C-alpha cells in the first residue's frame, strides 16, 4: 500500500484550452513602468539610479551586495520619474523605481561572454546573476544561488520542470513549445554549472507538442545521450518541486531540505530559457511570458510583457469584459488575489487571472464534516483538517508535531473541501504564528 496517495485530482483543466494554443504575443509597453527592487527571495536591491536619470533597457536600476539577491533592470528606455514605495503584487509596499517610457526601446550594450563553452561554472553563474534571473514559476529564488549547490553535494540529475499543473496557466507550455532550443541550451549550461551527467525534462502528458519540440531540440543540440524528455501523467501536485523529484526519481527531499540533498538540481522551464539568454546574449530578465485569462478577459492568451507593467495596463490591452470580482497573480490554486491593480508584473508573474464569481465558485464556510477528503488529496500526507483544528481551537504548537511547517500551500485540501473551510489560509496563519514564536 502506498502511504502517500497519488492520484490525479481533476482541476478545472478546461480553462487551459483557451490559452494553451495561444502563441506568445508581445504586449505593448506602457508609458510608465514600476520596477520593484525586490521581486525575489532574499535581500532587496538598493536603488542604483536617481530621479531624472536616463536609462536604457537593461540598465541596472537596483542591486545588492548580498549573496541571496537578484539584480533588477530597466525594462524600457526613458527617464527615472520616481524612486518610492509602491504596492507590490506579493502584498505590502516595496521600494520601486518608476520609469517614464520614451518609446524608443534603446538597449544597453549587453555584456556577452565570448565563448561560453570555455567559460568556467563561476563565470556562467556570474552571467546568470548579472541578468537578475530568478525562479520564474513563482518562488523567485535567485537562480545563480540555486545553481551553486554546496560543494559536497553530488548532483547526478538536472530536472527541468515542464509540468505547469495550475489550471489556466500555459506560459511554460508555450515557452517549451516555441523556445525549445533556448530551453535545451539553458539546460546545457545548467548541467555544466552543477556538474550533472544526466538531465530529465519532465513534461505533463497534456503538453505532447511541447515534449516533441523539446525532444527535437535535445537531438539537435547533440544532448541525446545525456538528456531525456519524460512524459508524466497529469497530476497538479507533481508540478511542485519536491513532489516532482519523488515522481521522477523516487527520491524524497528530507523535510526542510533541498533538492541538492538528494543529488538533484531542479529548474523551471522558463527560468531555463532565461539562463540561456543570460549566457548567450547577456540579456537580463526584463520581460516574461504571462498567461492572461479568466472570464473577465476578452482576448485570453500568452503575452510577452515588460517587467513593471501594471496589471491595469495589461487588462486594458487584452480587453476587460464581464463581471470580475477578483484578480489573481499566478494560478487559481496558489496565486495571490490583488487588492490594487496598479501593482506591476514582476519576474514571478506566471499569470494574471480576472475571475468572475461563477468561475471561482466560492461558498460560505460550514462546520467541518470530517470527510477526510483533505487528508486523501494532500500530496505530502498531512492531515489538513487536524492542523486547522489545532490552530483554531487548540494550540498551534501541537500542529508542529503534525508537520504543519511542511505544508507547501498547494491548495488541494481547500479545493476539495465540501465545507468550504479556508484550510490554506488557516494553515498559513498557523505556520506564521509558529515561526514568530520560534524566531
Amino acid at each position, binding site marked *: 500500500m502506498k*502511504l502517500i496517495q497519488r492520484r490525479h485530482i481533476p482541476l*478545472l483543466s478546461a480553462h487551459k484550452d483557451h490559452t494553451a494554443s495561444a502563441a506568445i504575443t508581445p504586449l505593448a509597453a506602457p508609458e510608465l513602468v514600476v520596477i520593484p527592487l525586490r521581486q525575489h527571495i532574499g535581500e532587496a536591491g538598493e536603488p542604483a539610479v536617481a530621479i531624472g536619470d536616463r536609462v536604457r533597457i537593461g540598465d541596472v536600476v537596483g542591486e545588492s551586495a548580498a549573496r541571496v539577491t537578484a539584480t533588477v533592470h530597466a525594462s524600457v528606455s526613458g527617464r527615472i520619474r520616481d524612486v518610492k514605495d509602491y504596492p507590490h503584487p506579493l502584498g505590502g509596499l516595496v521600494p520601486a523605481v518608476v520609469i517614464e517610457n520614451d518609446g524608443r526601446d534603446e538597449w544597453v550594450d549587453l555584456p556577452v561572454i565570448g565563448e561560453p563553452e570555455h567559460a568556467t561554472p563561476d563565470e556562467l553563474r556570474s552571467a546568470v546573476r548579472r541578468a537578475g534571473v530568478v525562479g520564474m514559476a513563482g518562488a523567485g529564488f535567485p537562480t545563480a544561488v540555486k545553481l551553486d549547490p554546496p560543494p559536497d553535494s553530488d548532483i547526478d540529475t538536472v530536472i527541468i520542470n515542464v509540468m505547469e499543473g495550475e489550471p489556466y496557466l500555459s506560459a511554460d507550455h508555450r515557452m517549451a513549445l516555441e523556445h525549445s532550443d533556448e530551453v535545451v541550451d539553458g539546460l546545457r549550461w545548467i548541467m555544466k554549472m552543477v556538474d550533472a551527467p544526466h538531465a530529465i525534462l519532465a513534461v505533463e502528458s497534456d503538453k505532447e507538442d511541447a515534449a516533441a519540440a523539446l525532444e527535437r531540440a535535445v537531438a539537435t543540440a547533440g544532448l541525446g545521450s545525456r538528456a531525456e524528455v519524460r512524459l*508524466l501523467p497529469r497530476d497538479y501536485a507533481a508540478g511542485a518541486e519536491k513532489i516532482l523529484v519523488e515522481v521522477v526519481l523516487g527520491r524524497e527531499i528530507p523535510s526542510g531540505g533541498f533538492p541538492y540533498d538528494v543529488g538533484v538540481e531542479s529548474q523551471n522551464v522558463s527560468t531555463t530559457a532565461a539562463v540561456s539568454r543570460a549566457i548567450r546574449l547577456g540579456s537580463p530578465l526584463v520581460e516574461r511570458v504571462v498567461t492572461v485569462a479568466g472570464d473577465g478577459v476578452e482576448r485570453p492568451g500568452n503575452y510577452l510583457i515588460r517587467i513593471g507593467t501594471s496589471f491595469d495596463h495589461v487588462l486594458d490591452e487584452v480587453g476587460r469584459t464581464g463581471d470580475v470580482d477578483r484578480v489573481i497573480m499566478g494560478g487559481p490554486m496558489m496565486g495571490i488575489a490583488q487588492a490594487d491593480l496598479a501593482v506591476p508584473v514582476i519576474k514571478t508573474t506566471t499569470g494574471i487571472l480576472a475571475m468572475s464569481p461563477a468561475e471561482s465558485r466560492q461558498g460560505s464556510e460550514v462546520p467541518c464534516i470530517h470527510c477526510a477528503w483533505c487528508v486523501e488529496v494532500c500530496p505530502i500526507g498531512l492531515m489538513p483538517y487536524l492542523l486547522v483544528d489545532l490552530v483554531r*481551537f487548540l494550540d498551534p504548537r501541537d500542529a508542529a508535531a503534525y508537520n504543519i511547517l511542511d505544508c507547501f500551500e498547494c491548495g488541494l485540501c481547500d479545493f476539495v473541501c465540501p465545507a*468550504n473551510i*479556508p484550510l490554506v489560509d488557516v494553515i498559513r496563519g498557523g505556520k506564521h504564528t509558529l515561526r514568530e514564536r520560534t524566531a
Partner: protein
Amino acid sequence: MKVTSSPHVRRLLSKPRVMWEAFGALLPAAIFGIWYFGPIDTLPQVVAAIAGAVAAQAIVERFRHRPITVMDGAPWVTGLILGMSLPPALSPLIALAGGAVATGVIKEFVTTSTGRTLLNPAMAARVLIVSEFLVPMTTFPVDGVSGATPLASATGPGYFDMFFGTRGGSIGETTAVLLLLGGAYLMWRGIIRWHIPAAYLVGVVVTSLILGRDPLFDLLAGATIMTAFFIVTDPTTSPATVPGRFGFGFATAGIATFIRITTLFPTGEALGVVLGNIATPFIDRVVTNRVYGTGKRRERKPA
C-alpha cells in the same frame, strides 16, 4: 476586488450535495421497507424520526444563535437512518423523540475537544431508545404477527429472503440488495470510500467464524449491510486515514457482531458503532499518514 486566500477555485461537491446524495442513496431501501412492512405501520415512524431530527437541530441552532442549516440535508440523513433502524409498529412518538435526541442532544453536545460530534447521532439515539423501550424495540413482527426477532429464533429466513429483504427486521435494514446498490452509488460518486465497508464486512465474517457460525448468514442478517455502508462510513465519527479506517471498520464489526450474536439484541450494531466512535478521535491523533520527507523513506520505483 475581493482579496481572499488561495485557492481561488473550488470543486462543486459541497456539503449539501454530499448529504442529499446520501439521503437519496438510502431512499430505495427505505421505500422498500415501508412498502413491505406496510405504510401504516412504518411511514409514521420514519417521518417522525426525520421531523424530530430536523426540528431539534433547527431549534438548537436558533437558540445558539447560529445560522439555521437544516436544509443542508444532514439532519434529514440522521433522521432517515434512525427511522430505518426502528422496528415496524413502534410508536411514532418514540421515533420523534429519538430523532430529536439524535440531533438536538447527541450531535450538538456530545462532542470532542474541537467541537466535533463524537457519536453517530442516529446510532446513539437508537441505543438510548432501546434501553428505555426495550420491549417495543426488540419485538419485531414476523409475517405480520408480532413475535421475537428472527435473529433470536432458531430457524431464520433463507438467504434469498435475506438478500432481497423479505424477512422480519427493522424497517429499512432488511433489503441487502438495495442497500448494496445505494452504497455502490455513493462509492462511485466518491462520497464514501471502500475502506471502512470492506473492513467492516471482513470483521463480521471473522467474528462469525470465530463464534462458529455461518458467515453468510451474519453478513445478511440484522443491520450488517446498512451499518457497513451507511453508518460506520459516517465521516464525522469515523477515522480519517486509510489505516485508521481499516482498523476502525474491523474492530467495530467485531464488537457489533459479538454483541448482536451473544446478547440477542438486534441493536448490537448500534452499540458496537457507538463504542467504535469513542475511539475515533484517538485513532485520528495516533494513526496518521507518514509525511513526505520525514520518517522512514519509502522505496518506490520511479515513473
